[in-house]
């Protein structure tokens, strides 16, 4: 009997050579990420637990992103506590205004294929884009990891998702993952690992894979996994490793189920208010007027997303009375988009370009809306009240769809 990707990964990490789905194992943690909203809570729990030192300060990354720029009077307190915590326990990896945590964990060179990573954020599943097991946890468990360097994990069952063929020009990896979530439903992958493969996935950039891994949690998944390849090596700035040949599930492994998609059959879609699994083709909602568009977040604030949007808006103007808010996912992406003229194109079209951070996606600032307003957004959640009042309608879309909607002032298909 073969093993799934996650079984192999956890066997390697724990040394338990026969670990299989359902077993409880103790994972050795390679990296942890804590973001600014939870730092004070982690610190309190850590000290309440009676720890006096961090198991390995070099494996801890603090990232200020949800509260940058500070929008409420108590926000700066979180950063002050973060600075004190870092100084007290000798943490050196602190990003104070460099962008969104999930972007930085791979972009800044921390997470590598095969790593086991936990973060105090549900979208920690993102790092599966490079073949790492990564998952979100609460602040109490994070405090325990800081003290021990370990966490118990139930080896998850796996849903295998195979996508073959070439995506139509106006269909992005965002459309693919939204479609998958729609099919699985919001709870359909609860406690499971998602294992992605197929020629479509192989052809995708690491950035596109990141979008999919990021949103795995929206189907309830514990993690998402992609097989590392040359692109991964280039992105992580490391050589291709012969071990990566085994970073995938065996043909005869036991999967909970397998889903097959043919890329040519996929279309641009939207997640409709107020559930991520309420998926409809963009074509069915064409013409619905909108008030705002948000391009950004750890899901879709990367350079290729900005490129795609710039391509759509070049030479055009954002519709009157519509705001088009662009929040690049990181400082590096912002700088690259400055250098290659992408931000100039977006600004010329009338975009409002903000500093990298979680922005509107986390619902604290960055374009909060009110009753009766409708927003098309490239982020990962459209929950009730996520971007303002509970009477705000949030539609999740790909960057190309979002940009096209900004120009049209209504929901429309890109191109």
């Amino acid at each position, binding site marked *: 009997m073969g093993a799934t990707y996650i079984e192999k990964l956890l066997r390697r990490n724990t040394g338990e050579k026969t670990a299989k789905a359902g077993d409880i194992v103790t994972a050795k943690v390679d990296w942890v990420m804590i973001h600014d909203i939870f730092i004070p809570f982690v610190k309190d729990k850590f000290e309440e637990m009676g720890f006096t030192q961090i198991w390995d300060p070099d494996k801890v990354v603090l990232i200020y992103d949800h509260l940058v720029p*500070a929008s409420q*009077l108590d926000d*700066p307190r979180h950063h002050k506590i973060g600075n004190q915590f870092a100084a007290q326990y000798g943490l050196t990896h602190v990003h*104070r*205004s460099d962008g969104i945590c999930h972007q930085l964990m791979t972009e800044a060179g921390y997470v590598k294929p095969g790593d086991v990573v936990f973060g105090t954020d549900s979208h920690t599943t993102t790092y599966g884009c490079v073949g790492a097991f990564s998952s979100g946890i609460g602040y109490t468990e994070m405090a325990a990891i800081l003290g021990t360097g370990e966490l118990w994990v139930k080896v998850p069952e796996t849903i295998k998702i195979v996508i073959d063929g070439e995506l139509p020009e106006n269909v992005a990896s965002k459309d693919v993952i939204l479609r998958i979530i729609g099919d699985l439903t919001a709870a359909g992958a609860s406690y499971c690992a998602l294992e992605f493969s197929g020629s479509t996935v192989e052809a995708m950039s690491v950035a596109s894979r990141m979008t999919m891994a990021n949103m795995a949690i929206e189907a309830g998944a514990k993690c998402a996994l992609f097989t590392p390849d040359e692109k991964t090596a280039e992105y992580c700035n490391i050589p291709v490793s012969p071990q990566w040949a085994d970073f995938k599930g065996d043909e005869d492994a036991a999967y909970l189920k397998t889903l097959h998609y043919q890329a040519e059959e996929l279309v641009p879609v939207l997640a409709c208010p107020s559930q991520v699994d309420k998926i409809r083709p963009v074509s069915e909602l064409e013409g619905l007027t909108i008030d705002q568009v948000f391009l950004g977040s750890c899901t879709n604030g990367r350079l290729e997303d900005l490129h795609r949007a710039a391509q759509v808006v070049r030479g055009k103007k954002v519709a009157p*009375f519509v705001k088009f808010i662009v929040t690049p996912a990181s400082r590096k992406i912002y700088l690259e988009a400055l250098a290659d003229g992408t931000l100039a194109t977006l600004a010329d079209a009338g975009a409002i370009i*903000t*500093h990298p951070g979680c922005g509107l996606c986390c619902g604290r600032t960055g374009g909060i809306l009110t009753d009766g307003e409708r927003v098309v957004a490239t982020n990962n959640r459209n929950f009730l009240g996520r971007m303002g009042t509970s009477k705000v309608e949030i539609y999740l879309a790909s960057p190309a769809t979002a940009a096209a909607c900004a120009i049209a002032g209504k929901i429309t298909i890109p191109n």
Partner: protein
Amino acid sequence: MGMTLAEKIIASAAGVESVRPGDIHTVELDLLMSNDGTTHLTIDMYHKLRHPHIADVNKLVWIVDHNMPSDSPKTAASQKKMRDFAKENGIPFYEGKGVCHQIMMENHVRPGQLIFGADSHTCAYGALGAFGTGVGCTDYLYAMVTGKSWVLVPESLKFNLTGKLNHGVTARDLILTIIGRIGANGANYKAMEFSGEGLKTLTMSDRIAVCNLCVEAGAKTALMEADEVALDYLSSRGRTPKAVFHADEDAAYAQTYEVNLSEIVPVVAKPHFVDQVVPAAECLGTHIDEAFLGSCNNGRIEDLRAAAAILKGRKVADTVRFLVVPASGEIYRQALEEGLLTTFMEAGAIVMNANCSVCWGSCQGVIGEGETLISTGTRNFKGRAGHPGSFVYLASAETVTASAIAGEITTADRLPKREG
């Protein structure tokens, strides 16, 4: 008896030969600016009128700049009210394009105009020889409905500028020094008129910075003659003057101040009043948590250039948040073109979209309890930039940038030399 600049503009707007301080005149207004700080209140009052109508929609300019992008459902609701009303009535409307006064200078203000703005820093328009003054919602509403209002002719104070600012000293230092000298109520109800040879040495950007801050001395308005510098700026923006007025030789001033620009040094206004002005040298070493470069006072391309020149090849101190906020979308775009945004981002600054940011202090970079901000904003009142238990120092773009690098208050000339 001759007239001052303020008197001439009021006389023209009132359609009379001459006016004197203390007279009350009904005037025809040229422009009425309002922003998201208060427009929703004006709209509420408007709807309570028996026969609401707008005298001339093209005199109105509405600008969303204070909380941009919006930070709460409450803000979003007032902005939506403003947007919907503007859309319905065809009111010229800007959203997310920058700070209101900068947008007005770039696109609307013409010499000789009389302008009401529902914002205290409307006095900035004097840099183009226009009489701009801040009003509340009620006055604004009356003017919006009738096209007219009444004005009490103010006494004028004359500031005769001589000499030239030294290298490393800015118009911001100049106006802070003047406010420090005459006090926070030193120009209450009065017009501050700037003239003299020294004025010619000031750029358009310098002049806006000077006029903009005059309300911090209590002034009703600030005025400068629209000279070649102003008219060149105007024509570069494709506009012509309404009228170019000159103060008469024998105009009467309540007081005349002589200001030698070459004697001005870099200064800061200490917490919590704009007139607590001391040489920056007296505050060296004061720890800061945040630095802010932006606002209608000091967020123009010239300020960004000066800051970038200091920052190039240096880094913002680790734990300092350095907010760089261009005053308008145009300035953002220009700074992008010139590579300034790259310099800021590489140095670790937080570059934001054009908005009022922490100068308004309700979102977009607020400071916390016990924190200290050094700012190019307009005010350092207690709690202005965030928590009531925080501290704000006002200074020039140069001093703010140097302090962001050092992590404590310092001036650009005191920074250690760049490496390499």
